[in-house]
């Protein structure tokens, strides 16, 4: 009886030992693989302002996509002639929005979302307004600045 019991114990000890070894082996194979397939983060220089357009480039009631770092932004000239700037990345599923002169506001073609001239989501699926930027006219240039 004594003998049998200790034999069982030794057996289960070996089972755990082997099992643990196998798990460790599999882990040490897959951990590097898993890490490998996640791409390394490439640091982006954060750009806080950009020249989005020349001063006479945009007519009233028109819009333009510009590059802001690695993302698109949208510069809008309202029918009254004011400048507005937003991130052009739709807050719904990240499509790039556009200015529709027939609607007189911003529109996303992907799922028919409408944003007013303050960037507020007024129709369609987006949950949040567009991120707004500050616009400054510096001589001949329209400069867009990320809000702090």
């Amino acid at each position, binding site marked *: 009886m004594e003998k049998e019991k200790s034999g069982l114990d030794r057996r289960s000890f070996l089972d755990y030992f082997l099992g643990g070894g196998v798990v460790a082996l599999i882990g040490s194979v897959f951990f590097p693989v898993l890490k490998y397939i*996640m791409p390394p983060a490439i640091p982006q220089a954060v750009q806080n302002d950009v020249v989005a357009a020349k001063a006479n480039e945009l007519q009233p009631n028109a819009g333009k*996509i510009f590059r802001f770092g690695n993302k*698109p932004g949208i510069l809008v000239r309202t029918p009254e002639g004011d400048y507005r700037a937003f991130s052009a990345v739709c807050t719904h*599923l*990240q*499509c*790039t929005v*556009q200015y529709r002169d027939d609607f007189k506001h911003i529109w996303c073609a992907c799922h*028919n979302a409408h944003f007013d001239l303050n960037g507020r989501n007024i129709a369609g699926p987006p*949950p949040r307004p567009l991120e707004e930027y500050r616009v400054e006219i510096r001589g001949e240039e329209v400069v867009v600045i990320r809000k702090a």
Partner: protein
Amino acid sequence: MSQEDNITNSHAEKAGFWRERFPLDAVAYFFKKKNVPMHRHSIWYYLGGMTLFFFIIQVGTGILLLLYYRPTAEAAFESVQFIMTKVQFGWLIRSIHSWSANLMVAAAMIHMFSVFLMKAYRKPREITWVSGVLLFFLTLGFGFSGYLLPWNTLAYFATKVGTEIVSVIPFIGHDLLVFLRGGEEVTGATLTRFFGIHVAVLPMLVTALLVLHLLLVQVQGMSVPPSQIEISARNKPMPFFPYFLLRDLLGWLVALGVLIALAALFPWELGEKADPFAPAPPGIKPEWYFLFMFQTLKYIPAKILFMDGEVLGILAFGLVGLFWLLIPFIDRRPEERRSSRWFTAFGWAAIAFIIVMSLIAYVIPQTF
């Protein structure tokens, strides 16, 4: 030894050579014995083979496209353009690849729903069903990853939206998005990744599952739907070899005809090269087999209580997918002959839902 003896000897030797090295007799015997039950719904038995046929076409044309295709953001669009305009019959090969992909999804879908409605997933065919549903999901994965490869505007935004959807999955969503995109944004890294998935990862997985799936079908034979058991017992089954096989081949010939006609009459368009700094074009739509999901998501309000409606909708689709995968373990009928009304109703409801939502998406322009 006479000349005649010599000839017969060498014949026998030749046959013996292969016989000794491969146990072909067992396989030949198996195929001689294999039967297909005959009843009112026997026509649905052809759909699986049809899916396989389109898959074979995909492998063949896919390999051909690989000879010229280049998977980078700078060269992908141009290389497809090169295939379409410069390479002889390049337009045809690419067109066939695109059309056959769509026909394959359609055939797989019909196959899957007919199997579901005929209750062919029941014991002992649970694993056949699970492997089949996984194969279907992989087929959609082929469609999704392949769609980006020409690097045109539509594909660019479809991929952006599609991968963004993944990010709503709790906890691992963002990691999954980065894994799929090869970074935070859809870029050339995404394209290269999708290419690898499309031509190496998915084919490997599909091949393994397909072998399992087909082997199980051979081992277990054809299932007879509960409503047809009596009719099928009265009718003589059709020997698979050669009668059913010949009909299968005839079906493949017709499919090939339809495929070539579609590819030649409606060559697949290339569109415009993707520009990450251009607005999404109006009229953008996912491929037809994803349309019903997008249409549904449109009807879910932006906010439900404290959660984004989108998130709830996508999670719901995930759960339905899981339910679908595990059907054989949920619909357990001790007496195989009874059909389960609730599950049949569920199948028809799902079909009706998909058709209605897709139709709405087509009829209402630009606002799917």
